[in-house]
């Protein structure tokens, strides 16, 4: 059993997918935020297996784990106390930028002022691009999860291809969890589509997780920064897909295809440019 649980495929694919699917199916009638809790539980389980339960020393990667886990709870609970799209936009931007500052300040503090400015502007542009794109599709379940699945898969695969299995596994675990909840919606439907549309803050995990993992892969693991540009364009690309079909399956498929295509293309490109021979 221990050997099974230490396998990367189980930790960051099979387990988060199955857990998210089961929890979504179990909670969907109880709460419209079932998908957030499903992803949160699946991610915590995977992160616990990948990282262990030790958080000292508090590295950037461990901070990302804590922040992503917290983002699910914030996204589920904050809409109850923070109404209004503009307020939620401000809250989302502040949360994301504060989170990224916390994660990367240790490294940024040793950089030249010019490099810190570039990093800050890059992070702000990435968060703005993802937040605005996800807000456009927040009311459409197929597009929201199609884009989230593709973006997280692309981030995870690219981080792995660049240099870090740890960051890659976290991204892939989130992608698998997203896929599990998405499949649950395809199978039985759920209320989290249009009802969540008015809640900008509910897209927080889909903004914060790929932004923090993507920037970490650039700063800690040699991912070329420009690989984040096509990845950040995934939700925008998905938002442009016309979805007329009645079938949930078809809508999910049509929304996911461009996202997955971009994600896989970026990962293959990173794999080629960083050298395909891993040295192991």
């Amino acid at each position: 059993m221990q050997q099974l649980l230490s396998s990367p495929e189980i930790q960051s694919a099979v387990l988060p997918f199955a857990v998210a699917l089961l929890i979504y199916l179990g909670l969907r009638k109880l709460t419209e935020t079932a998908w957030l809790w499903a992803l949160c539980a699946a991610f915590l389980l995977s992160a616990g297996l990948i990282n262990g339960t030790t958080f000292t020393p508090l590295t950037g990667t461990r901070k990302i784990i804590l922040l992503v886990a917290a983002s699910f709870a914030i996204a589920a609970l904050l809409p109850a106390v923070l109404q209004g799209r503009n307020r939620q936009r401000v809250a989302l931007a502040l949360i994301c930028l504060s989170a990224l500052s916390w994660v990367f300040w240790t490294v940024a503090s040793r950089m030249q002022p010019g490099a810190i400015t570039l990093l800050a502007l890059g992070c702000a542009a990435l968060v703005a691009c993802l937040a605005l794109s996800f807000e456009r599709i927040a009311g459409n379940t197929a597009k929201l999860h199609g884009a989230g699945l593709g973006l997280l898969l692309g981030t995870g695969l690219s981080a792995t291809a660049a240099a870090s299995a740890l960051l890659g596994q976290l991204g892939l675990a989130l992608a698998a969890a997203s896929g599990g909840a998405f499949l649950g919606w395809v199978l039985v439907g759920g209320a989290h589509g249009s009802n969540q549309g008015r809640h900008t803050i509910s897209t927080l995990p889909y903004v914060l997780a790929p932004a923090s993992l993507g920037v970490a892969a650039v700063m800690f693991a040699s991912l070329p920064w420009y690989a984040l540009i096509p990845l950040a364009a995934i939700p925008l690309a998905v938002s442009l897909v016309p979805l007329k079909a009645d079938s949930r399956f078809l809508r999910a498929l049509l929304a996911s295809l461009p996202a997955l295509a971009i994600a896989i293309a970026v990962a293959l490109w990173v794999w080629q440019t960083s050298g395909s021979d891993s040295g192991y």
Partner: protein
Amino acid sequence: MKKYVLIAALAALPVKSVLAADYTVDSSHTYVSFAVSHLGFSTMRGQFDQQTGSMQFDPAAKKASVMIEIESASIDTGHDKRDSHLRSPDFLNAAEYPTISFESTDVSWNGEQPATVTGNLTLLGVSQPVTLTITAMKCGTNPINKKETCGFDATGSIKRTDFGMNYGVPGIGEVVDLSIEFEATRN
């Protein structure tokens, strides 16, 4: 009067026989290397190309201490992609922990020769005691630059999981053999 004569005599003694001499590690003659099992098939070797350090050394008084700082990002295993991976959070996390340091806390002696050096190795922000065995040592005047020089070869081993470096265990060996050969010139 006798007291003043004694003080004057002590003051006239060469300083090096009373105080441990200060040395600076000569980076161009210092090699910090490691060896680790590669999936049980063979031993993979690598080294760090950038390091600095200092040493106090007085064999007559059997006093010595050493401090070495290694730049984590300077890891070199002769394979660029593998080196990038070794710098990532999976292994050395070089962006967040740019230095690996060793600071001695105790030296055991075999006559006037140091036999072992025990100290704290700080890696990934975690400090653990490590003992290095001195396998060779020579002090004298370098015939080329005429500087007083001491050279040491030392070996030891660590369990990398003790420092939170868990990736790839057990395929990529948990025990890492260390080898440090360094020269230091007297300031």
